[in-house]
Structure formats: structure tokens, C-alpha cells
């Protein structure tokens, strides 16, 4: 287990900064649905930031904008390390995405799926790939299954492989969109433990942006919690969390934090959980 002091993020530096984000989608009735009306969001370097918000508030959309997959209608800035993503689309190569489902290619083995991502993001030098894959497959306990096809392993294992596909790139920012929400609670708890271990194991912590609508999950993982209101969404609550890991769901601190979050949600976003 690592020292607790390491777990606190190197405070101060901003990794991602969104300013005055505007986005609307056409809705079925011919009108427009406002998703963001001037949303501002800052994410600190090395933090484990959890975006917490009700379904449909635009959490996935926010990750897609950070990854350059989607352009907002307008924004004053979309900065990654102080540079605007719209001027430097290549900045999104420092990011790797873990989706809600595994999204693996079924005709490739788990290792080949990870390699697919490495090739796409162009991780250099290539001779490091085997070592990287072995290291991270081992870290999530999948060494034995590297050469299995997705259909040969369980859903939890597929999702772990999807995490490896992201992590092998050693990205500066990890975007995770409700990665465990479709797993049963016991598997999900194990996955959270694996994820936190991976994140903490590194000298310099990667920046993780983790989306969820599960308050308890947020309380178990985050160093930073950002709460979004229903669309058009804005940030209604934000706080740092300075609790050690592993955090037990039944521990008083975690329970208190959950209570606080629930209360904030009810009061500021008008959403009851």
C-alpha cells in the first residue's frame, strides 16, 4: 500500500478548463434542447474528478467534448494544459476513453483490442507495447486471459480489458463514462478497487474524469466531486474529498459524505436520490 500523502493531488495546476460552454440539440418536437448554457468547469491535474449528475444532464456529452468527438455550439475556451483543443486537435491524443460498455471488437483478442488502441493513439516507441500490455493486463488480473476473445470472458473481464485498452496508452487524462454501471454490485466494487489501485500505483497520478450518477460510487472514488444539475446543466456543488483509500462503504466518513452529497443534490439540483 502506498503512503497516504501521495494520494493527495498536486494541488493547483489546471489540466482541463472549459469556459462558457453552449450546446443545444434539436429535440423530437422540432424545438431545441439546451444542454449547457454557459457551463464552466475546471479539472485539476492529477485529480480523480467525479462528475455526478442525473441521467440526461449531459455528462457523456461533456466527456465527448473534452475528447474532441463533439463540438459545442460555442465556448470561450476548451483548454487542455492551457492550449485550446480546437486549435490543437492532436491534444486529444493524450486522452483515453473508457465507455459505459466495453466496446471491444469481438474478432480480436483482449490483447489485440488493447493494441488496436495503442496503434490508433500512436504510442511510441512500439517496442514498449508488449511490455505495456503485460504490465497493465497483470495489473487488472487478466494476464491469463490476454489471448482470449471477448466472447470467452465475463462482462466484468471485458470491462477490465477496456480499462487496459485505455490505460496502456499511459494517457495524461482518462475519461471514464459510467464504466461500471452495467455490472453487478460485487463486480463493480472489485473494479473500483482495481481502478483506484492502478491510479495510485503511479508516481505522478493521471488525471481521471469519471462520470457517474451513483452517489456512493462518487464517495468511494473521488478526490474532487463536481455535481451537475439536470439539463440545461450547470455546476451546483463542488468539493474536494480528502479521505484515504480503500474507502469502505460502511465507514462513517464515507456514509457522511454520501449524506452530504444527497442533501446537496436535493437542495441545489432539486433531485432526490
Amino acid at each position, binding site marked *: 500500500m502506498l503512503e497516504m500523502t501521495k494520494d493527495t493531488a498536486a494541488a493547483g495546476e489546471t489540466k482541463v478548463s472549459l469556459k462558457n460552454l453552449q450546446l443545444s440539440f434539436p429535440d423530437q418536437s422540432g424545438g431545441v434542447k439546451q444542454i449547457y448554457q454557459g457551463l464552466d468547469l475546471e479539472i485539476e491535474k492529477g485529480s480523480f474528478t467525479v462528475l455526478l449528475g442525473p441521467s440526461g444532464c449531459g455528462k457523456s456529452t461533456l466527456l465527448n467534448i473534452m475528447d474532441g468527438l463533439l463540438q459545442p455550439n460555442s465556448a470561450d475556451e476548451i483548454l487542455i494544459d492551457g492550449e485550446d483543443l480546437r486549435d490543437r486537435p492532436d491534444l486529444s491524443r493524450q486522452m483515453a476513453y473508457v*465507455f459505459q*460498455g466495453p466496446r471491444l*471488437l469481438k474478432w480480436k483478442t483482449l490483447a489485440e483490442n488493447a493494441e488496436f488502441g495503442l496503434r490508433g493513439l500512436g504510442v511510441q516507441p512500439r517496442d514498449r507495447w508488449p511490455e505495456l500490455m503485460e504490465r497493465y493486463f497483470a495489473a487488472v488480473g487478466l494476464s491469463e486471459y490476454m489471448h*482470449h476473445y471477448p466472447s470467452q470472458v465475463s462482462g466484468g473481464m471485458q470491462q477490465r480489458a477496456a480499462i487496459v485498452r485505455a490505460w496502456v496508452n499511459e494517457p495524461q487524462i482518462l475519461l471514464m463514462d459510467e464504466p461500471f454501471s452495467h455490472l453487478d454490485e460485487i463486480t463493480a466494487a472489485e473494479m473500483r478497487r482495481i481502478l483506484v489501485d492502478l491510479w495510485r500505483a503511479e508516481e505522478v497520478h493521471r488525471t481521471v474524469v469519471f462520470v457517474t450518477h451513483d452517489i456512493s460510487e462518487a464517495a468511494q472514488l473521488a478526490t474532487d466531486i463536481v455535481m451537475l444539475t439536470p439539463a440545461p446543466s450547470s455546476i451546483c456543488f463542488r468539493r474536494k474529498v480528502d479521505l484515504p483509500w480503500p474507502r469502505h462503504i460502511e465507514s462513517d466518513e464515507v456514509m457522511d459524505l454520501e449524506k452530504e452529497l444527497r442533501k446537496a443534490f436535493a437542495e441545489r439540483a432539486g433531485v432526490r436520490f
Partner: protein
Amino acid sequence: MNWSVTPKSLLLNALPVAAAVLVWWAATTYILVQPRIYPTPQGVFTELVRIFKNEGPIGEPYTHAAATLWRLTIAWGGGFVAATLLGVLAGRKKWVFDFFSYPVWIAMAVPSVVWVYIFLVVFGIEEMVPILALMILLAAPVFLGTAEGVRSTPKELLEMCDSYKIGTRQRLFHFYLPYIAPYMVANARVSFAYGIRIVLIAEVIGLPNGVGILVGYWSDSLYMAPIVAWGLLLMATGMIVDYCIFAPLQRRIRREAEPRPASKRQPSGNSRLKRA
């Protein structure tokens, strides 16, 4: 389901064939006794032997057969590759699809014989004619099948490719083509079988050599046994290609797509329990 070849399945395959030969023999020996028009099995067999000995009235049968197979392979191969690549493009870009949609329908709707005549007028009696006619005919359904397959690629997987900045080549060979591989093998299978039939028609009408010319010659001489013999040979060729190339390919693809027992041990007991 078990689709492997067993002695029992072979016997079942052979049974109707044997029965048909028997009926054929009985009919041509006792009822339709007119060997020129209704050849007997023995008569056809004799012709097969002559073909294998490379004996024939207008040039060597081997040369004719080679000409036909060559045309078929070129036309089918060229048409298939071109149609697949265009199909992928059309599945991705709507304007490519729109651009080709009428030509493709025309290609499919106009009978092959008409194409052969059109090209004969344009090019004269040339090697190009049957090849082009075949290509067009074979390419059209392959194009549609491929475009449809590419269009059905799930949005989630495409987003994954975008997010991981997957390049064009990588996308084509590691994403689209494997995704549509089942469609492609089905396309290839059907179009090859179709091609065998059409190449003969083209040859009968518009070329100086090929199996079609032989068939035309025997048909003009009102002598049916060699025609049946060539028919059997073409059928056998189709079956061999199907059996040796397409069927194993399709089996492989199906195996890759379906869950199968792992070669190593199954997920350990506890993760099993968790799923329960």
C-alpha cells in the same frame, strides 16, 4: 448445432444423387430412347472421359476450360474487390451511396444477355466483353451488401474508433472488413455461383473460345451428352470452390463471432458466482 462432415452426412448427401442417376438411367434406357437428345449416364460418362483426355472437335477442351475459368476469376475477383471498396465508401458517405444507387439498380435490373450485347456493340468481339458484363453483374449485389453491412456498424464502435484516433487503413482492415466479413463471404459465395452461369452465356454470344463455345457447338449439332458432361464439370467446379474455400471461411468467421469454450480454464468460480 454440429455442421461437420460425418460418414452419415456424406451418405445422406449422396443418396438423392444416386437416386437421380438411377431414374435418369431408367428413363433414358426404357422411355426416352433417343441418345442424341436424351443422353444416358453411360453416354455422358464417355464424354467426360473424352474431355479429361483433352479430346474435342474444336480445339482442346483444356484450353477452353482455362479460358472460361480465367475470365470468371478475373471478372469475379476484380468486381468483388472494387465493389467491396466502393461499398465501404458508400456505407460511410451518403453522397457516394446516392451517386451509385441508380447505376447499381440498372446494373442489377438489366439482364446479363443485354449487357453482353451492349458491350459487343461498344467493343466488338473482345475478351473485355464477358469480363465487363460479369463484373457489372457481380459487383452490383456485392456493392449493396457491403454498403449495407458498413452502414449497420454500431455507432458505439465507431465512436470508439474516433476516440482512439484510428486511421483510415486500420479502420478498413481491422474494423470495417472484419465487421462485414460474414456479409462478404456470403456475397462471394452467391456471386461466384452466379458467375459460373453467366460466363457461359457471355461466351455463347460473344467470344471465340471458352466452354460456352463448346456448349454452343454441341447444341447446334443437336448432341446433348457433352453438354451435360460440361454442366456436371462446372457444377463440380462450383462445389469444389465452395467446399474448399468459402465454406471453411464462413465456418471460421462464425467461430470467431460466437462464444466458444476457452482454451485455458474458464473464469474462476468466484467471478461466476458474481454474475449469478
